[in-house]
């Protein structure tokens, strides 16, 4: 007899929600990676870093993160009823 009862498999909707939550957890990691990327860009030999390009890149990444977060949090919402129950399994 197992000590705790966990749902082993979930129906399609809960499964989707679970994966969206995974995406929400991974989003800051992706963001950190993209934000850290300019560190690797070597400045041009003659006239230093191209600030305009780097700036535009950063602001585009920033906007992308905001849109992604908006889509995810819309779908995930707060805590729907029942979310706690299906959190048990994975």
């Amino acid at each position, binding site marked *: *007899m197992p*000590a*705790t009862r966990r749902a082993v498999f979930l129906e399609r909707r809960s499964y989707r929600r679970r994966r969206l*939550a995974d995406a*929400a*957890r991974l*989003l*800051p*990691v992706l*963001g*950190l990676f993209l*934000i*850290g990327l*300019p*560190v690797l860009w070597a*400045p041009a030999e003659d*006239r*230093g*870093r*191209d*600030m*305009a390009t*780097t*700036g*535009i890149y*950063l*602001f585009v990444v*920033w*906007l992308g*993160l*905001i*849109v*992604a*977060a*908006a889509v*995810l*949090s*819309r779908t*995930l*919402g*707060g*805590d729907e009823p029942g979310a*706690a129950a299906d*959190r048990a399994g994975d």
Partner: protein
Amino acid sequence: MVPFDILVLVCIAYVVFLFLVAFLVEKRARERAPGWLRSPVIYTLSLSIYCTAWTFYGAVGYAARSGLEFVTIYLGPTLVFVGWWLFLRKLVRVAKSQRATSIADMISSRYGKSPAIGALVTVLCVVAATPYIALQLQSMSLSFAVFAADSSEGWALPDRYATGFWVAVGLALFTILFGTRNLDANEQHHGVVTAIAVEAVVKLVALLAVGIFVVWVVADGAADVVARIRASDVAAWELRPGRWVGLTFVAATAIFCLPRMFQVLVVENSDERHLATAAWAFPLYLFLMSLFVVPIAVVGREALPAVNPDLLVLTLPLSLDRGDLAMLAFLGGFSSATSMVIVAAIALSTMVSNHVVMPLWLSVVRDRRGDVRQLVLRARRASILGVLALGYGYFRVSGGGEALAAMGLIAFVGVAQMLPALIGGLYWRGGTRTGAAAGLAAGFAVWLYALFLPSFGPDVILPAAVLAEGPWGIGWLRPRALFGAEGMDPLLHALFWSLALNTALYCAASIVSFPSPLERVQAQRFVDVFEIAPAASGWSKGGAEAEDLLAMAQRILGPAPAQAFFRAEAEAQGKTGWLPDTTPAFLERLERRLAGSVGAATAHAMIAQIAGGASVSVEDLMAVANETAQIMEYSSQLEQKSEELSRTARALREANEKLTQLSVQKDAFLSQISHELRTPMTSIRAFSEILMDPDGLPDDVRTRYAGIIHEEAIRLTRLLDDLLDLSVLEHGQVQLQESTVVLRDLIDRAILASASTAPERVFVIERDQSREAVAVTTDAGRLTQVLINLLSNARKYCDAAEPRIRIEVRVAGERAELDVIDNGSGIPKQSQALIFEKFARLTDTTRAGGAGLGLAICREIMGKLGGSIVYLPGQGGAAFRLSFPLRLAQAA
């Protein structure tokens, strides 16, 4: 150009407007009509106090000096917010479930509601925030000075310390009015929050307006700005990877560790779902705030190369004679500074009153009558004044020089010291009070020594010699090169060493030390906040008197709310009146309610005084663990039971079906047996009546009739014998005649005896005589009877054109198996369960010639012999298997 007096007037009008907003909202909140007051929009806007005057003015200056590095201050929080599901959600959930009133309360609450930790965190926060508040006062007085400098109406340049002083007084007034209005549970201040939301809109609009003006009016649109950025000396900026990553990290930490951020993010949060909106809306706000920073910096530097870049947002519109825009920008900067100071003062005063004043009061004052609420409120007000006075004092002492500009980041590194204790507390049950205290103290000390004190400059607090040579000439203790780490950026150096030591000590001391029971209870509550598990109560059943508790609660919550709370609790326990039983659960709820007003540590201490320190013990924890285990055990038992029940139900259903069938069969049999009995009886009666006729019967006829009567009597007798035999077997009154025989002989005998049944049919008997040479010790007569029965049945019922009977013998260990198989159509599946029952007969009686007792008798006999008889399905005909021991056990 804006005249200075107009500026002051607008400023005052704006402040009055904010007062009105706060006042009306407070009024509406009291009337319980929150509605839009608690919308996610207000929540998100209130978070904007992250953007202080340091952002509003300073970001442009920062960009002018260090290029794009300023965005790290906003990218860090963006990462935290887009990853809200990972961390912020848990933080807010835990804080709400614990009714945390501040970050000091949160951390102290996690580590066993320790007053010491609460006080330590409070001191750390106050020290870190003081220069930060000074920075806001400075930025406001500087921005006033910008306008005053150009005034031609005879206004003398006001003393900027005087400006700072009056601003500080105004802010203190506002904060005291709206921040300490009520000692409410959960410490929510709707008026203040709405006012700062309004200010958030003002500062965003102001900065966007200046930005749009710069890009599309001063410059020639976006493309031109990009070209100007490329050409500008600002672009000669160097990205330093260490600072880039380090600043992103420290800003990400600050977004929830700064006391004022914790206040709006966690304490003022009225609905956890607002976080889902803020997750993208707040990064968007930061994005918009940062969007025009570089254009303003670049264009401003071109236009005004000699001016302090920190004030470009103001001076650029002024120099282009756009007084209205400058006015708006001024209000934006004013909003940024005031909202930050107000919330910081509220947060810090809550911490000071709950974690410094109250514990002191509890330990000093013995007379516990009187209203604690007044005491707490007075402590709050005094703390607000104190915090602002400290800020102002710092502003005066430091002289408001350039050194202040770095103060924002220094404060960030200071509050980052709470990170290990906070993260560890939320995700690691092993973190202990000792560990948290050690880590915090070490981090705090390193921060003070390596960053905070040197920031004043040489010979102000730390002697220049110490800075250059280290204390007592110990080189590896130099504040800016600890342990020989030379050449690091001072900020990164301090961040690295303070957090490294902090984390290491936190982990090491936690591992070595042993937590108190209350710490373990709290650890479980924090870490497993999303699990639905029975949590241990922090109290064991103690000797607390409900009356004393009510008296104390009244002094903290106020008489009416306290009485209402007690009454509701009593009602929930099924009692009438105001005094509930002091159960652990009740003490727990009362403590949590009080914690919303005075903090967890104080609330715990106050209840502990009354409950006689009957706090939770290790035994209580064990009991909870046992209960949990018992519940799990119980549920698994229930599961087993229910499986057993469903098995039983299935068996019962089968039995019931069988019974129903049997009852039908029995009815049929009764009519049959009466028919069976009646047929011979009828002929016996008829012939005997004929015989009774005295004359007219020849002798041969008389003899034949008598023969018929005799035969019928024998049939009757056989039937009755069978019934008797079965009854004897069933009731166990049978004597077994044990003997040793060879199975082959036994089978021979049975075949011979059964040949009399249906003698007209010719059967082929298939057998392997060599395998039948098995000696068995059993009741040979009874076993033969069974065999005869089976063979006779086969002869009777086998419907094949060329009937065959196969007999197989096997020995398996101590048992013999004997199969009798014919090649007829066998027994239909639905009848297989019934054939061994009494009175069962499948076909009509004319062919059977028996009473349907044969197989029932066989089964009884095999049972007596310690064996069994079963029907073997799927053998191509009717097949029976006898299984019996080679040596009859004489147990019976």
